[in-house]
């Protein structure tokens, strides 16, 4: 399941949706907006995403994860729009019978997602400057 949404991430709802009587292990990753990046103080961020493409590419990542690891379900929500310090930008949950594959698959998903999902981030600094991260 993948959502790209301007609404705040609700880990409780997401964790409840990751439910299966045979699955004993849920590993989650929450990525939050940090106050500083490369020495500059951030006041807020704007995330922009290519929604349909992101959903399609997440479906590819999900398929690869289910092929590669013995897990039951993969869920992800990513914010777009304006985020403040401490806000959760991305939430990933991986449900499995056993903890080993749950940890490995969750790490795989966040690594792939950061490389592959068409989502951009513009940082706004205390000095009034701003910039798109990673972008030429």
């Amino acid at each position, binding site marked *: 399941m993948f959502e790209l949404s301007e609404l705040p991430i609700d880990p409780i709802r997401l964790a409840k949706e990751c439910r299966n009587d045979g699955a004993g292990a849920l590993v989650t990753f929450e*990525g939050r907006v*940090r106050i500083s990046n490369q020495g500059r103080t951030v006041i807020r961020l704007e995330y922009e995403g290519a929604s349909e493409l992101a959903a399609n590419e997440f479906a590819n990542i999900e398929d690869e994860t289910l092929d590669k690891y013995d897990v039951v379900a993969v869920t992800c929500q990513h914010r777009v729009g304006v985020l403040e310090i401490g806000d959760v930008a991305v939430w990933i949950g991986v449900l499995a019978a056993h903890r080993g594959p749950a940890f490995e698959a969750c790490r795989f998903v966040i690594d792939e997602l950061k490389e592959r*999902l068409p989502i951009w981030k513009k940082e706004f600094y205390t000095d009034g400057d701003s910039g798109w991260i990673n972008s*030429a």
Partner: protein
Amino acid sequence: MIHVECAYYAMMRERSGCASESIQTEAKTPEELYEEVVSLHGFSPERAHVKVAINDSFATWETPLQEGDRVAFIPPVAGGCDHV
């Protein structure tokens, strides 16, 4: 001559001033189309750092363009959160 819909994001959206636009083009591939939109809008990312999606799926730069294709140029991404 075909019509395609070009979609721009992030600094490319800001630079062009539009999220998408309809373009009439002789371009046969996204590679040729990217040259055209770079001349048009002065986008800075080199093509080596850009990916292309056609109709909401990633594609190669050599994919033949079809009438009505939606072509998105994808500058370097920063998915997830900050350096974590």
